[in-house]
């Protein structure tokens, strides 16, 4: 097995359901403190994913940042994903957290429906979330409430549509012309 990032006891176990067998001590401790934040826990491929309901994401992030068990002071990445045009919920936003003191990682996931793609912004918790959220907005159309400056970052400012959605064609809608 290629060396995984952290010392999880069962690296390839897939366990879902809200009363999962949390074999990771972090999840156990978090479940004791704030069980309403944990929608679902997935342990797979040596990583822990916690599905957090949308309204609790800011509270969960700021808690995890200062909690002595967690100390997740480094936000590696915010990444959106489109599950598919017919999926319900359609979009997901992944927050990859890292601790520079304890060297462990966790992924928080927020699931969004197609009609209501609003998520509270975590740029107050880690300032690096600013640009990551702008990119997720640009690519998927997920709107981050409370973001100081939510506008397009990679695509041109007058671009129509959101490029990484599954229903956006690969070649775009029209070839480029100067006019």
């Amino acid at each position: 097995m290629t060396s995984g990032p952290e010392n999880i006891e069962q690296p390839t176990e897939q366990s879902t359901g809200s009363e999962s067998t949390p074999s990771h001590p972090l999840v156990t401790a978090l479940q004791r403190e704030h069980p309403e934040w944990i929608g679902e826990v997935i342990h797979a491929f040596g990583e822990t994913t916690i599905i957090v309901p949308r309204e609790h994401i800011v509270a969960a992030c700021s808690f995890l940042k200062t909690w002595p068990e967690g100390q997740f002071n480094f936000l590696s990445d915010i990444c959106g994903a489109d599950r598919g045009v017919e999926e319900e919920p359609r979009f997901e936003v992944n927050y990859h957290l890292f601790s520079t003191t304890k060297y462990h990682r966790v992924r928080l996931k927020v699931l969004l429906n197609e009609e209501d793609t609003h998520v509270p912004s975590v740029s107050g918790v880690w300032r690096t979330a600013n640009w990551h959220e702008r990119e997720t907005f640009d690519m998927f159309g997920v709107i981050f409430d409370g973001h100081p400056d939510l506008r397009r970052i990679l695509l041109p400012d007058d671009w129509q549509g959101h490029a990484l959605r599954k229903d956006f064609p690969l070649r775009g809608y029209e070839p480029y012309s100067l006019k």
Partner: protein
Amino acid sequence: MGLENIIAEALPEVLTTQLDSLINWARKSSLWPATFGLACCAIEMMNATTSRNDLARFGAEVFRASPRQADVMIVSGRVSRKMAPVLRRIYDQMPEPKWVISMGACATSGGVFDNYAIVQGVDKIVPVDVYIPGCPPRPEMLIHAVMMLQDKVSKESVRDRKDIPEEEAREAVVPGTLPVTDGSTARQNTLPESRPYTIASRHERRRSS
């Protein structure tokens, strides 16, 4: 620019031939590129200027940052849709005579990236003189392209390039109007007649270099 045109119009043909060869020699021996390095090909362009493959031997010594001081624009790298108007604006700012080398597969035709974000070929925006394939092309290929451009420059005549208005200058290739074939030429059984890689020019003297 202006003085040469005045002289050219006043003199008979045989003297303009001598004038042509002098002016073309001067132009091709000091082609100053404008820095337009976009992506990976820009690194190979930088490699072409360093000591192992020395582009300065061919006159392309200084890469001018200002397009107003440059002769040739080497478009090296993929041109995204956000960058395309910028590219056109830089090209427009270059004074005549100017040439464009499209370096790499992405500048020539979109390259690996056939998608919404990349302009499929910089010749949709500016008229191109020399295309270089490769991803990225080796620095020697860039030097070869500069040599081909020098061949092309030496075939020009002073009477051709005048201070013409912008719209007429763009008549060479109107952007976006390259003909799209239906593939019928690929199905023809006749071989195209073989051509040398450059068209011989009566002004050219091949020196061993």
